[in-house]
């Protein structure tokens, strides 16, 4: 098995929402946060990231704002909405149970 792999389908939303808990961030920064915090085991391709961000925004879980970046460019920053925060809680709970279950299965074999 490789050291790093692409995100399992369906967990991308969870990862994106979690990374935004620390504060608003632009797309590149989000990808970077995920990579750093997973010690480079989880890689988010940008081709998947941006559609996911826009989908989350459509669902009102995140919202975006245009800001002027450090280098004086227009940059789009995303942040969690109240609904996003709630959804994140639910997703985390589900994920915790799921991984505990998976761990249990693995340990038993």
């Amino acid at each position, binding site marked *: 098995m490789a050291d790093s792999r692409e995100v399992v389908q369906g967990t991308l939303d969870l990862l994106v929402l979690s990374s935004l808990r620390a504060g608003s961030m632009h*797309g590149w920064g989000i990808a970077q946060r995920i990579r750093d915090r997973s010690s480079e085991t989880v890689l988010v391709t940008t*081709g998947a990231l*941006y559609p996911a961000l826009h989908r989350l925004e459509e669902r009102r879980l995140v919202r975006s704002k*245009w800001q002027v970046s450090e280098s004086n460019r227009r940059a789009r920053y995303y942040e969690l909405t109240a609904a996003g925060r709630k959804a994140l809680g*639910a997703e985390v709970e589900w994920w915790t149970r799921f991984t505990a279950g998976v761990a249990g299965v693995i340990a038993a074999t």
Partner: protein
Amino acid sequence: MFRRLWSATLALFRRRQLEHDIDDELRDHLERDIAFRIARGASPAEARRLAAADLGGLERTRDDVRDVRFLTHVDDLRRDVRFTLRRLARSPAYTALVIVTIGLGVGASTTVFTVIDGVLLKPLPFRSPGELVTLWQTRTTEGMRRDDVPPATFLDWQERARTIATMAAADPWGVTFRRDGSSEHVNAWRVSDGFFAVLDARPWLGRTFRPEDFLPGSTPVVLLDHGFWQRRLGGDPRIVGRSLTFDDGPHLVVGVMPPNFEMPERTNLWQPWVPDSAQRVERFATYMKVFGRMRPGASVADVQAELSTIARSMEGEFPRSNRGVGVSIVSLEDVIIGGRRPLLWTLLGAALVLLFVTVVNVGALHLTRLDRQHRETSVRLALGARRSAIVRPLLVEAFVLALTGGALGAAAGAVGVRVLHVLGPVDLPRLVDVTLDWRAVVMSALFALVAGASLAIVSARRASSQTHEGAPGTRGMTGSRRGTRLRRVAVGLQLALSLVLLIGTSLLVRSFLQVLSADRGYRTENTLSFSTWIYDEYPAVAPREQFVRNVLERLRALPGVTHVAIGSALPLADQITGEDADVVMEGTAVVAGEEPQARGIAVWPSYFETLGTAVRQGRAFLPSDDAGSERVVVVNEAFVRRFSPDRDPVGRMVSVGLMGRGIPSRIVGVVADTRHARLDGPPEPGVYLPWLQRPIEAITFIVRTAGDPDAVAPLVPRTVFDVDPRVALDRMATLDALLAQHLRERTFLLVLLGVFGALAVVVACVGVFGVMSQAVTERRREIAVRMALGAAPQRILGEFAREAGWMAAGGVIAGVLVAAGGTTVISRYLYNVARFDPLALGASIATVTGLALLAALVPSLRAARTPPASVIHRD
């Protein structure tokens, strides 16, 4: 769902901005990535290449993002609709019930709306109809609030009024149409110059009248009614310029009016009216219809004020005729449709009640369904489904159902409008024009959307209040207490509203029976009548009398005929129910022109016997009561009550002026009251004169038969033409048919309200059935356990019956309270029936309660028959 559609629409319009934003965002990403790679030690070219590769091809990413923006909405909606359709297909009974129920409500409302729209809301087909008014003479001392106008009075008004730009009048006329050896009486209006200009009515063919048509010695001209032209002349397109024979001379056809131009009333043709010397000074006889177009800016009140002033000065100028004579201005619109407003609004109210009942019912059904899905929803919530993902399909379902029901309703409306054409009062103005058009379709859609929105609100509130806690733990228990209570209230409400409709209907039924059974004073069975006018054919009295004798003799000889008679007027026949006669009892002094009036009719001696009118006192007329003997009259009981309440009327003298000066006559008999013009009003005073002493030229023949009068009817024209082929026959009808026509408005309202009421009751009972079934399902386990422990089935049955009884009782109480206020709208149709008629109330309550309990019986029986073991095993 609306929000999504909205943002999808918005996205489409802001596409350019959106794409620009996406480009900016991705470019920003790329530059950050390159900078990052360079910082990590890559060469600029290398960094650029890697970053681009990582972005997965700039173009593709951009397309993907754009798709997310556009397609999520469309996709979601499509998925929801597909999901909904699949789910509905799994419960076809529920789906069909909901759609049919909504269809019923929407169909009824659409039908009635269409009629109201066509009759009341669409403007009249004249230019600036708001400027058109009608002018009437009043004589308040005698209760005449809206009388026709004498010709001289019209001419004076026309000359003096300033607030009216143009004024015109029409004189009711009749002519004999002769063609191929047959004669027919046809109605006509003689109209003053400018009549068509006032209304701004254009002809269908040819032209209307020109000023030269009104000059003395000009060629006689006629303008034909569209219906007459179609029916009698085969719609000949080259009719204009041809000549037709009316009365005794050729008349040039100058034009044909468009269909449904019914001014002043339904007629066959129009002729120019030129007042003759007698008419120029005629201020007594009221027969002209007067129309005017107000000056722009003038109001009805302005016109009323000016004309009242004119009327006052005319009182001084012509004290003999105009004392107490006023004027009343009524807008044309009020005259044409004013009287029908209450009827139509009542119907709309009833239709909306039905719509409301159906919506409430569908709401209750929907709640039941939601409860059944409660478990599934709980599980999905527990598994982390987003609330919107649960609510959205419910909303979609609500609207799919409502719109399908609405489409069904629009179709039902199209059928309903056709039914109304058949059923509607013949004289309901403009009904023939009414068709289902786009306005009606919009209205159905609106009704359906209201239904959909109600369902949606119910679903959304329900689903969003649901929690997932404990869901997997609870076993088959479904539904919440609150939901059950809500459904019971909904069903009670339906029962209440359908009870209101039923109470209204039964009050109308009672009134209808009262009107039918009210003592009319004459019989309608096996009686045939027809009219003729013989002014021109028999100007002299002796030949006129001979003609009548000859015709009566031959009619009497027809097989199956038992009685024959003539009268100058006939009960039930509109327009010819009698002329007003001035009556002055001996010993009373009355100011000239203010004589009290009674309905005067000149009759043949056999008239009372033929119509079956009872003689109460004295005698009926004899053949010897002719021109050579003492002037005599017979009066009715209402006459006696009004004019001779304290003294025996027989033998008293009374001066009777029927279309002329009063002639002293002796009262020889009293007959039973007859209800002539109105069946649902008190009988009016009436005075009968022997036709032989007062041979009026307008004659109605009455033929009583032993068997079916329709069998005799075909023989009648021949019989009359054998005596004289020149006379024209009109209005041949059985009295039964006239009676039915008279009751048509009543029947119309009754049938529609009855149908709406019946539908509402059925829908409400479906609701009862649904709620009780649900209750039984919910308590299945409990019942099974109790029965296993020995509870008697009767006990279980009793419990459910009690529950249904409470629901029905609540509905009845609420319904009676609403009906207490609601029935005022039909009070004008109530006759001899109190609004709180115990019989009508009792019958309606019994019907609703009985049907509700019956609907509850089936599920309750099922509960009572629950096999104790089965349920326990199944779980």
